Every structure is written in structure tokens, then in C-alpha cells.
């Protein structure tokens, strides 16, 4: 299922267009680098060709829910049904994994309209994958995070822990229907999988391939990050996604500060913000490191205590022997 960075580079050598990074630079990248995308908002005209390409390429993965939905208990559990609203393209839904977020921003005395293709950020430390109770959300070796519809029960924990609330639920599909549909689970969560099947075949993600303006690039993360930094340094561009949530594999470059964009966005479910995001997994990672050290420290402490007891015992025995002689 996973395409390695090396395979990707080899295969994309045949089919890559302007969207892919130059292969010579990619070949220099370190072997361990994940793939990341660069989204240059200065080029996006908001034509939505990427949105429709995404829908067409991924239509076979969209949910086909069984209706009527099972009655849910307790009653406060609500169904999420987007199956009759498949044509919604102004937010993320289980049938729309990419949308164009349009904002008007005052910057340098001008009103600038910014069109931002929004989808999963493919975090380097994805809380959705780290905290999924069933291992349905999973980070691939190539840096993309995917959700397996055959495992996901639709509890929406991934949505709750995602700093951008990206995954969207569709009720009436998935394995929960075969377990206890009224009492546990509520469907399947859907989001951009960075065209995992297309990458496997050496093709570019559909949205990247379809864009007439070459807004997106995909390549080894260190190269993508270098390119974003270069744009910031030489062209005064602003960057988003490089440091957010400890680093993501979706890096935006813009002519206007993301803070201003974020203030202009009516963010909420399906409409992700552009705010600064501290690393969600940072504390957990520190605690996980503590877990590696803990048994050794515990064993050392126990051995020291045993050593003390032995010393005490030897001391007492010696005292007694001296007393007796």
C-alpha cells in the first residue's frame, strides 16, 4: 500500500508535470524524508478545478450509506448524513475532501482576495492517528495520514483531536453496522488521503495534476520546506504549516500574513482555521520518552535498595561476630 519516497521519485520521473519538484533536486534529498506538498496561494485563482478533480478521482471511495439509519442510543447521538448533499463544495464533507476557502484581506493598503485550497494537513505527528482507538487512522511511510473505512467506527475522536477538525463523518456505512449499530459507532470518517492509490501507481495526486496554475508541488519534505523558506526570504512570502502542530506535510505560502487570513475566516466544522497551532503531541511525546527510561530507573532504584539491605545485613553480622568474640 505504501509508496516509498524512492519509488515515488522513480515513478514520477515518467509522469510528473510542472507540479512535481525537479527530480534532480529530489534525488539529493535525504532517504528518510517524507513527501510534502507546497501550496502557493499567490498563484491560486480559485477556479476549483482541483476540487472537481479530487471528487472525480476519489468518487469510488465515497460512502454509499444504507438507509434508513439504525436508531441511535442514547438519543443525543445524532446521525451525520451528507449523502443527499454531495454537491456541497464550500466546506469539507465526506464527499468533498478539498475546498477553496475564500477570504478578503486588507494588506499593504490593498484588498487582496486569497483563495486557499483546504484539506487535511497530513501532520508529521498526527494526533488523529496516534489517538485512534482502533488503528483506523494511520500515518503512511510517505507522510500521508489515511483512514481505513473497513476499520473506522465513526466515533469521531480523530475530528476532536485534529487541530483543524478535518475528518468528516458519514453515518450508515462501515463496520459499526455489523457490531452494535444502535449502541456503538456512528459511521466512518472521511478526509483527503493524498491520493494514496494514485501515488502507488506513480501518478500525482489528482488536485495537483488538474491545477492549471501549478499552485501545488509535491516532493521530499526537506526540499518543499527549503522552497517555502526561500520564498519567505527572497519574496517576502508568509508560511503556514511548516511549524504548525510540530510540522505538517502541507505547507502554504502566501503574499498576506496568515494571521490576517485567519481573522477573516469564519472557521468551524468543515471550515478549518489558519491560526497558529502548537504541537498537540508534544507533552505525549515527552511522556513516551519517560516511559522508555522508567523501567531502567526503577530497576536501578531497586538494586540500590537491595545493595543497601545487603550492606546493612553484612554490618549487622559483623557487629554480632565482634560482640561474640
Amino acid at each position, binding site marked *: *500500500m505504501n509508496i516509498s519516497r524512492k519509488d515515488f521519485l522513480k515513478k514520477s520521473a515518467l509522469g510528473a508535470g510542472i507540479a512535481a519538484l525537479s527530480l534532480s533536486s529530489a534525488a539529493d534529498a535525504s532517504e528518510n524524508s517524507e513527501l510534502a506538498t507546497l501550496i502557493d496561494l499567490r498563484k491560486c485563482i480559485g477556479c476549483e478545478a482541483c476540487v472537481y478533480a479530487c471528487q472525480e478521482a476519489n468518487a469510488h471511495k465515497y460512502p454509499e450509506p444504507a438507509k434508513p439509519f439504525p436508531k441511535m442510543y*442514547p438519543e443525543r*447521538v445524532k446521525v451525520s448524513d451528507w449523502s443527499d448533499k454531495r454537491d456541497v463544495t464550500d466546506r469539507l464533507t465526506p464527499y468533498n475532501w478539498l475546498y477553496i476557502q475564500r477570504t478578503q484581506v486588507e494588506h499593504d493598503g490593498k484588498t487582496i482576495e486569497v483563495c486557499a485550497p483546504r484539506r487535511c494537513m497530513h501532520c508529521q*505527528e498526527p*494526533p488523529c*492517528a*496516534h*489517538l*485512534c*482507538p*482502533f*488503528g483506523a487512522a*494511520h*500515518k503512511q*511511510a510517505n507522510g500521508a495520514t489515511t483512514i*481505513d473505512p473497513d*476499520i473506522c*467506527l465513526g*466515533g*469521531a*475522536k480523530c475530528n*476532536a*483531536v485534529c487541530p483543524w477538525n478535518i475528518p468528516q463523518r458519514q453515518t450508515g456505512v462501515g463496520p459499526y453496522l455489523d457490531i452494535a449499530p444502535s449502541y*456503538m459507532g456512528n459511521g466512518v470518517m472521511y478526509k483527503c488521503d493524498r491520493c494514496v492509490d494514485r501515488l502507488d501507481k506513480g501518478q500525482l495526486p489528482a488536485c495537483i495534476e488538474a491545477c492549471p496554475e501549478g499552485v501545488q508541488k509535491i516532493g521530499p519534505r526537506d526540499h518543499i520546506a527549503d522552497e517555502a523558506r526561500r520564498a519567505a526570504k527572497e519574496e517576502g512570502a508568509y508560511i503556514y504549516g511548516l511549524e504548525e502542530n510540530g510540522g505538517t506535510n502541507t505547507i502554504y505560502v502566501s503574499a498576506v500574513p496568515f494571521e490576517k487570513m485567519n481573522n477573516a475566516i469564519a472557521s468551524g466544522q468543515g471550515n478549518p482555521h489558519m491560526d497558529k497551532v502548537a504541537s*498537540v503531541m508534544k*507533552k*505525549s*511525546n515527552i*511522556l*513516551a520518552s*519517560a*516511559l522508555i527510561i*522508567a*523501567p531502567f*530507573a*526503577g*530497576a536501578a*532504584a*531497586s538494586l540500590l*535498595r*537491595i545493595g543497601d539491605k545487603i550492606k546493612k545485613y553484612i554490618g549487622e553480622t559483623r557487629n554480632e561476630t565482634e560482640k561474640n568474640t
Partner: protein
Amino acid sequence: MKLKKIPDILYRFTLADFLFILAVFGLALGWIGHMPVFKRYYLADLPGMTWTGDYMLINEINLASASLAAFLIPQRIIKYYNEKHRTDGNHARVRLINILFAGFFAGVLMKIIATGMGLNIPRNVIFIIDMIYMTVSASFILGTPMIWLSGKIAVKVKDKAGIKKESGI
């Protein structure tokens, strides 16, 4: 000097014992609280329990408890082999609880290594680990009170029958 209202058993507990119990509770909460059904069935809505609805906090409590338990386990093992006061019946029950705990703790560690350390582990392996974690956690969390209760019942039955009292788990 013993305070009157404090049960005898508490005097036998060391700080390490209390910390270990705290770690076990943290791990149990980590397992129950990591599933969305915990919120669905109002458990996180109980007065004073709203903080348990924070998935990140529950994950951090789980990791901290696992670290604390891992630190204390070597000392527990030594203590277990030093204790000679248990009667045969209770010893079997303690051993069973220890086995369940060992399985539970191994499940916790596998789960943390598989999903919490950013390793590239195949998804089907993670799925199997998740299922093991579910099974061993449920066995320990549900099994321990049952074994403990069976010990108490056994003591009562023997008391009634006039057989010498066991020390209780």
C-alpha cells in the same frame, strides 16, 4: 500510634504501594477514557468528571501512569517474592491478578509503541495490537474486581463454616 478510624490495611501500605495503585487507576482510566463510547454514555458528563472528556489529557494520564508503573514494577516484583505471609488460596488469586496485570501492562506498552511513538508500523499490525490491548485491558479491569470479590466471598464462606480465616487479598 494508630488512628482509630483508619483501616489496618492502610498501615501496611507504603508510598510505593499507593503510587502503584494510582498508576493502575490511571491506566484503567486511560483505557476506558480513550474510547468515544465513554463520552457517548454520559460518563464524562458526571459532576466533576468533565475533564475526562479531554482525549489529549486522558492520553497523557495514560502515558504518565505507564511510566510510573514501569518505574515501580521492578520493586513490586522483588516485594512479591519477599512476601511469604499469603495462604495458598489467596496466593493463587494474587498470582492470577498479577498475570492479568502483566498482560494488561504488556498491552499498554504495545499500544504506546505502536501508535504513540511515531514509528512506521504496518496498519494491520497496529490493528492486531489494538485488539490485543482491548482484550487484555478488559480482562484486567473487569477480572480483578471479580477475583478480589471471590476472595472475600471465600473468606466469608470459610468463616461461616468455622475454617481458619485467610488474610484476604
